[in-house]
């Protein structure tokens, strides 16, 4: 089985400049279909990514453990450990955005994958340009990337909740802290929170969040927003069942309330 545990630096010229200058963006492909995995690897290498791939979830977890993966493409239907399990196991190890490549459009499958920790999904058959656009959208302005724009935008810290223990959004560090502890948000959760916080108190519609965070246009799946809001709440709310920081505005969208 192909085990891309050793990242292969691509020899291709970097056409899009999709790296941060120090390390190139590394994408992990977990896909058991040889044709898709190989062709995808070629396409992404040509798009300037460093690609590692795996046909089995167990092998992919080993790659994730290296801590060098920036983005993951995960097929759900695999022999052995399935994609959902992989996502749940990989999440504590990595906050890298995960895009699910699904052959199924069933509502339940996609929501389950998002609940497990995926950031976005594409359904087969997809156009590779679309997939690259998804990757770019999720990779853009990630907190670990020392992007100067991000640093400037988010230099301020914002107190989300002054009730003890204090919840603080530290734009400079790209982190959220409760008391002195880091709240472990994924890249996407962090960006969603930051989007809601600019400025706080303003109602954001699902499509506008979808556009801002996922770079999806009018036709994006709004459930992605809902699932991420749910995940964000479990991490920052005192009572995720009765949220008072990220509140739902019926029929309109979501609003961040400061305390």
């Amino acid at each position, binding site marked *: 089985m192909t085990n891309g545990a050793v990242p292969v630096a691509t020899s291709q010229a970097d056409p899009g400049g999709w790296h941060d200058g120090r390390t190139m963006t590394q994408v992990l492909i977990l896909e058991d*279909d040889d*044709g*898709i995995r*190989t*062709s*995808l690897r*070629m*396409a992404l290498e*040509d798009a300037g990514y460093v690609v590692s791939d795996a046909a089995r979830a167990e092998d992919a977890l080993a790659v994730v453990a290296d801590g060098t993966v920036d983005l993951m493409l995960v097929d759900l239907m695999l022999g052995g450990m399935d994609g959902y399990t992989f996502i749940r196991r990989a999440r504590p190890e990595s906050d890298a955005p995960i895009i699910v490549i699904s*052959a199924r*459009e*069933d*509502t339940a499958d996609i929501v389950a994958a998002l609940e497990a920790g995926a950031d976005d999904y594409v359904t*087969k*058959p*997809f*156009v*590779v*340009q679309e997939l690259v656009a998804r990757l770019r959208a999720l990779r853009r302005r990630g907190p670990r990337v020392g992007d100067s724009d991000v640093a400037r935008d988010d230099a301020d810290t914002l107190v989300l909740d002054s009730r003890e223990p204090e919840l603080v959004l530290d734009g400079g560090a790209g982190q959220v802290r409760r008391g002195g502890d880091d709240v472990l948000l994924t890249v996407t959760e962090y960006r969603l929170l930051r989007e809601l916080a600019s400025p706080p108190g303003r109602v954001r519609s699902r499509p506008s969040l979808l556009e801002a965070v996922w770079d999806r*246009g*009018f*036709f994006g*799946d*709004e*459930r992605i927003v809902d699932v991420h809001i749910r995940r964000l709440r479990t991490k920052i709310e005192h009572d995720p069942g009765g949220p008072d920081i990220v509140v739902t505005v019926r*029929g309109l969208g979501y609003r961040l309330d400061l305390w």
Partner: protein
Amino acid sequence: MSDDSAESRTRRLGLGATIMVSFALGGLLLAATMAVGTYLTARRYLIEQRERTATRQAFADAAYVRDGLLTSGAKVSDVLGAVSPPADAAVLVRRGNRWFASSLQVSEKDVPAQLLVGPTDRTVALTWQRTPDGPAVMVAVPLPAVNATFFERTSVAELDSTLTALRIVLAVFAVITSAAAAVLGRWAARRVLAPLDEVAAAAAQIAGGSLEIRLDSTEDPDLATIVASFNSMVDAVNDRIRRDAQFAADVSHELRSPLTALMTSVAVMDGRRADLPQRSQQALDLVKRDLDRFHRALQDLLELGRMETGASGLLLSTVDLSELVRHAADSMNVPPELLHVPPDGARTSVLADKTAVNSAVRNLLENAQRHAGGVASVVVRTEHGHVVISVDDAGSGVPKEDRRRVFERFVRGGSRGALPGAGLGLSLVAETVRAHGGAVWCSEAPGGRGARFTIELPSSLGGDDG
């Protein structure tokens, strides 16, 4: 038109009418037979009775005349004068060659030849005859003792009127019986056809797409068979449809992975097309074009499969159709000046699956662009609690007889095979709209020669806001 009239001329009676007419005819036949039988029996009985009475009367009167004549020296005319026949009777006596009558109403000319029995004959003769006053019975009684023959004519006009009255009564009875039979037939037909009406209603509902409809089971042994057959037929049809849909879904699903690999590989090749010789580039373009068609057809098939699983496959949210149409038209490069969409704030929201409705709208636009000379106009408006999208094209229109058919699968307009596209698009539009409880139809574009495709979806605001 001529076909219609020809058809109606040769059209047979309906089952209900047939049953009713059969009952009426049966009733009439029965009533007529009964009436005629009754009449004939009654008539014979009445006539016999009348003849007996007349004969008895004639005997009595004849005996009186004989006794009178036996008295020596008695004159016939005197004896006759003493006879007192009933009011409607007249008496004649022939003695030798002389005739004597009791009244002027009767003479020897009234005696028919067969009654001219001789005085010595032993038989009594009887005959019927017509008189100006109606029918009459004439009885001849030979009186050998006095060498004479006695004739008595009794008018039976009252028998005639009795029989006439009887005829009328029986005729009326026959008519009433037939009418009653017709009414009974109508009722029976209704009763017999009532279960068929139920079957027809159920069949219509099933044809309309409600495949879960079944007939209620019945205790009636005559109906149980048809109900059971009908239900199992619907089950079979349902099963068949489900299997077909499942097959299509499975096949399309199986194609997802190879198509993904194919598309990705071709994208890699396309990214390096500069490395390829010119001829390979040409071949690559062909592959790309057909792969694109393949991709679109598969997406339509997958979308159709999703529609066929029913509402459970729909991801409903409030969608502003004005915005959706604007986005779809923009992505399909439809010039914005052809768009007639209400300004922002107009209430054109529907509860719908955004992706599915988007595919439907895109399919309409694509249909116009690829098969009908381009989009001529796109209109979004609200009407009677519905949001209506109509797409006019610049093609040659759709003939009336094809306007329903275009929504069937793999139907293409124009000459067969002349146009690209598998013809799934419009059937996908129809399935999508149906799954959303809306309607879709094709008509003539106003003022033009093109076609107009209209989608109507129930407004999420409900009520009449048009």
